[in-house]
């Protein structure tokens, strides 16, 4: 048997597992980075191989956002923790009105985590980053002992630049402004819940995880006077709108009939006793704009693949209590308040 003189045993990506040496900073870690991370994420910045990435000059004010991802299960219909991390941080930068440019990713791996799963996650991140055109330029890996981590935790940070006059903020909303929602609510949260509770539906619920920066670019092009953009993630549409109402000190009135929701998601929420307004979304946008521009913004959003189901769901009015209220499909009115703790389903 001849052995190549430069033979190095490669990582066993099929059956191998993360062990403490992978986080020790030595050869094992270097191999993990080269054969797994860099293999998928490879770009000119990562290839620099230094402690930090040296980036070109930025032209404009910087926007930075960071996220930690601890979703369980790691893999779910429509995505996984990897692409979720990439989409989430791109969106956080983009809703500020900035063009996302670069991402950084940190991994906390649990001893014993299958390399096959890690490979799948990192590939998913690479695909998401490539599709979005936003590279992951630097990263870090640590390993914790078995039992001290939930498989893998991922932290991502994103940086972008914003042109003058094009930044959005939550304290800019005025009475009379109109609220738009880019599509069906509750897909992501219920996809996770269904997976966790092993609920099977005839029409499977799929996470809506997506990068929204190209939709936002199209919205910017429309010339509408946008006050604020936000993606309603944890806590759902209700929480996001309450945050904005408080920041801007305005009241909001929503129309329940205008809020798009898929029948399967509505049924799943009904079954589990959850209110869809509080369920997480990972590929949706709330936009508040001046009333005069609502129709043109609506058209611009609907013209984009990620905004086909955009709907005008309400408007803002003066209210010292900054309540978010809703006229129900039934004809009455209810308040859509902040969530208290975790949403706990009713018992009987």
């Amino acid at each position: 048997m001849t052995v190549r003189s430069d033979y190095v045993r490669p990582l066993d990506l099929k059956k191998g597992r993360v062990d403490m040496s992978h986080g020790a900073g030595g050869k094992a870690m270097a191999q993990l980075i080269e054969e797994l991370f860099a293999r998928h994420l490879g770009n000119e910045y990562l290839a620099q191989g230094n402690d930090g990435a040296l980036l070109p000059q930025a032209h404009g004010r910087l926007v930075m956002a960071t996220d930690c991802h601890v979703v369980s299960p790691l893999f779910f219909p429509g995505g996984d923790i990897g692409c979720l991390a990439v989409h989430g941080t791109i969106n956080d930068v983009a809703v500020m009105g900035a063009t996302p440019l670069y991402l950084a990713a940190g991994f906390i791996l649990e001893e014993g985590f299958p390399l096959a799963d890690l490979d799948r996650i990192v590939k998913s991140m690479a695909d998401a980053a490539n599709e979005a055109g936003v590279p992951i330029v630097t990263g870090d890996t640590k390993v914790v002992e078995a039992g001290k981590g939930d498989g893998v935790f991922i932290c991502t940070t994103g940086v972008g630049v914003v042109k003058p006059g094009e930044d959005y903020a939550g304290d800019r909303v005025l009475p009379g402004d109109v609220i738009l929602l880019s599509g069906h609510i509750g897909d992501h949260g219920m996809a996770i819940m269904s997976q966790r509770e092993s609920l099977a539906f005839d029409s499977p619920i799929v996470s809506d995880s997506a990068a929204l920066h190209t939709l936002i670019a199209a919205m910017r092009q429309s010339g509408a006077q946008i006050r604020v953009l936000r993606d309603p993630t944890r806590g759902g549409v209700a929480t996001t709108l309450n945050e904005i109402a408080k920041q801007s000190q305005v009241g909001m009135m929503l129309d329940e009939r205008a809020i798009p929701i898929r029948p399967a998601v509505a049924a799943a929420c009904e079954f589990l006793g959850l209110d869809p307004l509080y369920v997480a979304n990972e590929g949706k946008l709330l936009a508040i704009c001046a009333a005069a521009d609502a129709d043109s913004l609506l058209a611009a959003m609907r013209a984009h693949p990620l905004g086909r189901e955009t709907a005008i769901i309400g408007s803002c009015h003066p209210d010292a209590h900054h309540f978010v209220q809703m006229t129900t499909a039934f004809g009455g009115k209810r308040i859509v308040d902040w969530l208290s703790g975790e949403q706990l389903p009713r018992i009987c």
Partner: protein
Amino acid sequence: MKYIDEYRDGEVAKNLAASIRQAADPARSYHFMEFCGGHTHAISRYGIADLLPANVKMIHGPGCPVCVLPIGRIDMAIALALDHGATICSYGDCLRVPASGGLSLLKAKARGADVRMVYSVADALSLARKHPEKEVVFFAIGFETTTPPTAVALKQAAAEKLKNFSVLCCHVLTPSAISTILESPEVRQWGTVQLDGFIGPAHVSTIIGSRPYEFFAEEYRKPVVIAGFEPLDVMQSILMLIRQVNEGRAEVENEFTRAVTREGNLKAQNLVAEIFELRRSFEWRGLNVVPYSGLQIRREFAAWDAEKKFPLEYRAVPDNKACECGAILRGVKHPRDCKLFATVCTPENPMGSCMVSSEGGCAAYYTYGRHREAASPDPVALP
């Protein structure tokens, strides 16, 4: 969604609202108590109060099993988890109820107790089967709706001779609670709480049938209409109650005919009778001690009764002196009347269970109705 959307139709609601307005005599007011927390929730969530005329008022009753669960029973569940190392399985709403020592099941979990949220007792049973090394205890609360499933689980556990599963039984009975309210001095003697009729519980009635309520209608001369949980069910039932009051009738009517019969679910009733027996007395939060109102597990099933399996002691714990949950549960006071409401006591920091359970009167008012008075100064119907 079939069988749901039809009962939420806004157009039909408008017509019903008009009928209610026509039927309600402007010369008097009508006060109806919805016994069940699910109805409180429906009224709040769909804004039904907005569709009722000002002289028709809804009073929230004690029909939320979490709200009437005494602190002492939650202390027992926490003790099982923290002191006896048991895995406690509980319905979601119980997890946040404040108990003694600043603890709740959720806070006990943060201290290392093994507390799991389950949707049904079947989940707890599966957990016990899968993990023979864990001592699994199911925290069984609820009125007659949740009692039959607990009975099934106990029967299965006994048949399988499961050694690591038991039930902490806190099941209570609806008719006893209704009696207590009707017997309360404010209602019966002093007439200070005007109570013209009841909206009867939906799911409880599918089990016990409409027959048990006939006693109340006759003895106390109060009409009872059993209503489904959808908003149209509730509105239809209010209309039926108004008509009964106007015509001087005090009968039991069934609006929820698609699920409730006069006899109820006999199989479930028999199963419950097989496994459980009446406790001579049971403490209810807000209603104090009520005779023959709670269930305990029969001697034959003692091996699966957490109160027999573990050295547990029940200690009655009084509510915070300023907490008005008791009066609110009986319809005597409104959440507004409680000094702690919306100040110290909020859903994030509940002082009493009326606030922590989404079906509690205080939580419903806080979550859905508090804006009403802030927005318009007209002190009207409860949300």
